[in-house]
């Protein structure tokens, strides 16, 4: 299997703090990995660097053969828009837009908003009948599924999920994990940051971070 993402000696330093310290990691296409570790271990920093929302202090991030740390701001935005789908712990839905409109926002910045496609994405996460509801009218689990639909809508090569089940009850956690299983089955690469061992166990590989370094790979 060819590699999709490769981190080579990546460090991120804030003053005296080494949020990431010389981390190297390879993610293959279609692979599902979990990044685990305690608070402050560098999980979110790694997510930000992989999703191009932050730049490493040193090291290379190779995506599909390109060093994305050398990209211009515009190219980074394009890369980020076309290749990555983000799932947040707090969902970050726009509260005055309906579920389907929230999904269409990602389409709008990618190409053209298409309500039919957006509804199909919601159908994939089992929320077609809740398409016209505002986030305030949806449960936490439903909001997370809208967030996943938004991440999927532009067919990204990699889905990055930051504590996707952190705010969900067990039933909703299972629904989200089922969606991830389905995506993985369809060949989508997944990187899930979590400190929930049950979520980690579902992934093919678990990377444990401690003090900004990879403590173990499994």
């Amino acid at each position, binding site marked *: 299997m060819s590699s999709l993402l490769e981190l080579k000696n990546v460090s991120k330093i804030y003053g005296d703090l080494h*949020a990431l310290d010389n981390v190297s990691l390879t993610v293959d296409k279609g692979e599902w990995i979990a990044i685990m570790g305690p608070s402050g271990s560098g999980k979110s920093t790694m997510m*930000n660097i992989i999703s191009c*929302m932050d730049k490493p202090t040193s090291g290379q991030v190779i995506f599909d053969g390109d060093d994305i740390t050398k990209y211009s701001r515009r190219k980074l935005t394009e890369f*980020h828009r076309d290749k990555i789908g983000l799932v947040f712990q707090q969902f970050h839905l*726009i*509260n005055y837009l309906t579920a389907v*409109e929230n999904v269409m926002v*990602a389409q*709008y*910045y990618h190409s053209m908003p298409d309500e039919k496609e957006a509804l199909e994405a919601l159908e994939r996460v089992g929320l077609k009948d809740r398409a016209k509801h505002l986030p305030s009218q949806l449960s936490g689990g439903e909001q997370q599924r809208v967030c996943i639909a938004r991440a999927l809508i532009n067919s990204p090569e990699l889905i990055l999920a930051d504590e996707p089940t952190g705010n969900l009850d067990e039933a909703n956690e299972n629904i989200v994990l089922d969606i991830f299983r389905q995506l993985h089955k369809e060949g989508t690469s997944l990187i899930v940051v979590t400190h929930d061992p049950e979520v980690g166990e579902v992934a093919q590989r678990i990377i444990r971070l401690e003090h900004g370094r990879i403590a173990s790979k499994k």
Partner: protein
Amino acid sequence: MFFTMMKGTFTKQWKKMLMIAVTVALGASIATAMLNVMLDVGDKINEELKTYGSNIVVQPQSEAVVSKLYDLDNDDITVDYINEEKTGELLTIFWHNNITDFAPEIATEVTLPDGETATLTGTWFNHHLEFYKKGMTYERDTGIINLRNWWDIVDGEWLDEQAVEGTLYAMVGKDLADAKGIKAGDELVLTANGVSETVTVKGIFDSGDDESATIYTTLPVAQKLTGKEGLIQKIEVSAITSPDDELSERAARNPNLLSGEERDLWYCTAYVSSICFQIQEAIPEASASAVRQIADSEGKILEKTELLMSLITFLSLLGATLGISNLVTSGVMERAQELALHKAVGATNVQITVLVLTETIITAIIGAAAGYFLGYAFAQIIGHTVFSSSIEMSGMVAFIVAVLIIAVTLLGSIPAIRMILRLRPSEVLHGGH
């Protein structure tokens, strides 16, 4: 999608948007009021100053030259005369509508029954003038009733030429009347050059100056006493003029030195010099000149008023800019998470900036429209309070205010745009490291 997102912002942040609209409305209203008053104030001040007498005097050529050369009082020199009929030519010039009033005059020394002398001026009080030229009829009621409207009639009434029969009437100045015991209704025998006329005193006036020691009568009476029937010595003209500027000053020195384009502009602007020039064209044997004191006062008052209003406009727009700046910036701060999300799903800085600016500009336009009408009301209040008349609204002001408001909105949005550019989704959405 763009409009859906914008609509959402208006729904979600309606209080903030309302505040922006109110801030813009206040700035726009003051700018509208001040600019309209500023544009209209020239005419208003002109109208005000017109109440203090004529601002152009038309004299025979020879008298004007001698008067200018030696700085003499007109009474001290030998005079030539203008044909009274020529007075009607004033109604034929390009700027005839700007000439509000005029009155021909002829003056002489008369002997009173007690043997003492006094100055007598023959003029029009409210003369109905009919003038025929090239098959056209020009009509106007004009005279010193309007030109000397500050005269205080202390006894009797104004000499109303159109209400009395004949011309044997006069008005006597208060100082002279007090000295000679003259009252309204008295008959007065005036003698000059061996000719006597008996006139009825219609009223006693107090002019507040030397004229209070003189007598004013109808033009035919004075012409008969001077033996100059059909002739006049000068015409006092009150005209609404545009304030002098560099072009009018050059033209006043010598209009022949202007380029063709400059000359057209000067000729078609109601400068006191261009009106004088046109009067001279119409009455070639006369010389028309500005009464400088009035003309200069107009310019100075206008300059200071415009400066004050420009300053008020600038300060109000500065206030609006600061207000908009605060409101838009705090709006962006409140929406930081939402805007970071836009960035996280692939929006460029330009797209987010356009979204926020469009929302702000639409709000500003609504505020500016409300402000324009509020400014209209302010302008009318200023007009009625200060000038006792309404202020004419200029279409140009609407355009200027629109441009100023957009500039103010863009300027006020700069801090918010800088904040958008600095917004890092990694910090806002994931919360630090």
